[in-house]
């Protein structure tokens, strides 16, 4: 009478799962970086492409070899290693020697990511930590040489040919003239489009913004972090500009120096940013504050990567104090 007993699978509920996976998430982020990638090849030519490919390949290869050697499950197909390689290439100069991205990628993947337990367990953003390592070890390669983009002007203005936009003012000895040209429409246009000197994928605010908005629309990143980060930099520079502390306008500051790639692609790395919504606000505002501090009073012209790395270290603390209140709980038991 009964249909013969089938071999049935027993698993706990739920019996349906969303199709969204880690791999899909990483792929969407990589897609969002494609406009900036194409832009980089347009601005800096074949060299940008070459360094990016080397960086991605070494990141993926390092993860693969490490996991094979440790007899772990190989997870390179989840795309996270490729993404790290891509981001690392985007924040180094196109004129670095070809072995530099290899060293950087190995450091990012091996030391920062895998030794801490692999995807999800690293507390620093691997690409940023990789860049910091390269900066500390080979500062000359990392900051001294920049490649002139297609526009033919490294700083975005004609008077200065040996520095990136953020470095130009310092180089000129804070001349009011230079500040004036940097604030001009012409210079801002170069900055917006990315036709200036800088790291491979960070120069074009516009192309990164397109990618960033795509990530927000697809729900991959939370708008709170980029908004609070860029917003706080902007707000602080309004004050500093009006009080004469900064010679450069707030607009210049949010378009220049890796803030866009940092705010949309690095600070939003889920692994190394707060998981709570309130925590994300705090993270973004503090990163903005630090960026301004470093840019204005620190030793580097550009403060995005160190700000985010510093904030990465505060994530556990931030989360601890921003846990959501469970439904129906009246008072905190803490």
């Amino acid at each position, binding site marked *: *009478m*009964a*249909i013969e*007993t*089938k071999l*049935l*699978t*027993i*698993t*706990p*509920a*739920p*019996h*349906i*799962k*969303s199709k*969204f*996976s*880690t791999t*899909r*998430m990483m792929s969407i982020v990589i897609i969002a970086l494609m406009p900036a990638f194409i832009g980089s090849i347009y601005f800096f030519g074949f060299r940008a492409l070459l360094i990016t490919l080397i960086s991605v390949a070494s990141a993926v290869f390092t993860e693969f070899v490490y996991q094979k050697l440790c007899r772990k499950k190989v*997870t390179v197909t*989840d795309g*996270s290693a490729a993404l790290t390689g891509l981001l690392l290439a985007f924040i180094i100069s196109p004129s670095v020697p070809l072995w530099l991205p290899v060293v950087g990628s190995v450091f990012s993947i091996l030391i920062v990511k895998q030794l801490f*337990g*692999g*995807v*999800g*367990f690293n507390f620093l953003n691997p690409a940023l930590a990789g860049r910091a390592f390269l900066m500390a070890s080979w500062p000359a390669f990392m900051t001294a040489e920049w490649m002139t983009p297609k526009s033919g002007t490294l700083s975005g203005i004609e008077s200065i040919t040996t520095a990136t936009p953020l470095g130009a003012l310092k180089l000129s000895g804070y001349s009011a003239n230079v500040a004036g040209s940097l604030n001009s429409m012409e210079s801002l246009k170069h900055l917006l489009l990315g036709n200036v000197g800088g790291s491979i994928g960070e120069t074009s605010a516009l192309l990164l913004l397109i990618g960033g908005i795509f990530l927000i629309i697809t729900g991959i990143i*939370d708008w709170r972090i980029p908004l609070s980060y860029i917003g706080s930099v902007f707000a602080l520079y309004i004050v500093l500009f009006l009080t004469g502390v900064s010679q450069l306008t707030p607009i210049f500051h949010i378009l220049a120096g890796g803030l866009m790639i940092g705010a949309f692609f690095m600070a939003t790395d*889920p*692994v190394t940013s707060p*998981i*709570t919504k309130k925590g994300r606000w705090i993270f973004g505002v503090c990163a903005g504050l630090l960026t301004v501090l470093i840019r204005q009073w620190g030793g580097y012209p550009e403060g995005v990567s160190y700000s985010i790395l510093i904030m990465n270290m505060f994530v556990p603390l931030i989360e601890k104090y921003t*846990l*959501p*209140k*469970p*439904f*129906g*709980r*009246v008072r905190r*038991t*803490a």
Partner: protein
Amino acid sequence: MPKFFTFKGGIHPGEFKFTERDAIEDFVAPDVVYIPLSQHFGKPAKPVVKKGDKVYVGSLVGEPDGGFSASIHSSVSGTVKKVDKYHHFSGNMEQTVIIENDGQMEKDPAIKSAYSDSITPEKIIEIARDYGIVGLGGATFPASIKMSPPQGKTFDTLILNGAECEPYLTSDHRLMIEFPEEIILGALLIKKAINANKLIIAIEENKMDAVSVYEKIKDKYKFDIAILKTKYPQGGEKQIIKAILDREVPEGGLPVDIHTYVQNVGTAYALWDAVYNGMPLVKRIVSITGSVKNRKNLKVAIGTPISALIEHCGGYMGEAGKLITGGPMMGIALYTDEIPVTKGTSGVLIQRKEEMSLDEPTNCIRCGRCISSCPMDLMPNLLGDFSEFYKFEESKELGVLNCIECGSCSYVCPAKRHLVQLIKVTKAELKKKGR
């Protein structure tokens, strides 16, 4: 345009309500029915029949064992073959009254309507207890206990839960369309029993056909309709109250603490049948859906083996991989199709081998999706970590006991972590330790 009510969090899985237009069909009870004594939340019933006893439709076969239990009745007329352990949805073999059906479907001679206009609340609660009425939305909580609040607590609002937020299931939907007056009459009985002054029927936006049925009778019976956004778990007791009344059940508390009573529409129908016709709860509507040749909504005698229903629906489509009782989000995977239908079987969902989601869990990437989806504002990622490291007390701090086990967190997790399963482990451990 009416206002659509909703709650914070939740998910939007595909609806797959294939059977929403299929009228309920009576399924003829099979030659043998297997009626488990454990079909409800609480202690199993004590058998009151033995081998060879003659029973009728509606005859008592199991009586409540103590205060926290429920009555069980025969769904056919015939002879008791034996009372023995048999396949059960819980995964264990459970005490079951096995009855040979004589095919006459003769009603127990004692069955008669108890309804009068002056029926007292006490009488309604008594009938609910004696006629085996339990919550039919899945929780199977004995209705008589729910209708008797602790000393000093009162109800003001009755929400009739017709959300049916689980994907695939349509049994409540069809019942609402085909038996609107019966459901409302049953609900009015509950309202009287709990002395509430307001009745609201809550229906998800994807069942506007049902909404229009109730629009027509709402003035006659004086009740309100609340249309809910289609979102899972909209039908969760705490979620539905929050959505409609903006009242929050306090942590560790019950809806009665905020004067609200929620009952599934199927339960209201069963109570109507019990009071107006004197018929105990011996049948229920079951959606047979998923990978079966002809999907149907069937009115089934409790105790019918699921295999008989599937046979009636033309058999499996493809190679059956999973057999689920209830919906895909909270339902239980069964180990054999010989398991009988019980009071809580709202549906039977069949998944083919290739439809099963069997992804291996990977590392949490801290994306926060589980947190945004959690209707109870918990941190499922952390609760999962704590469970993996046996840190049960820490989970308690974070409110793990509030988890309603809706599975939203597991559904959305891109790393495919078995979050709700880990959380259930923690809850079981805490329960063992006496909380």
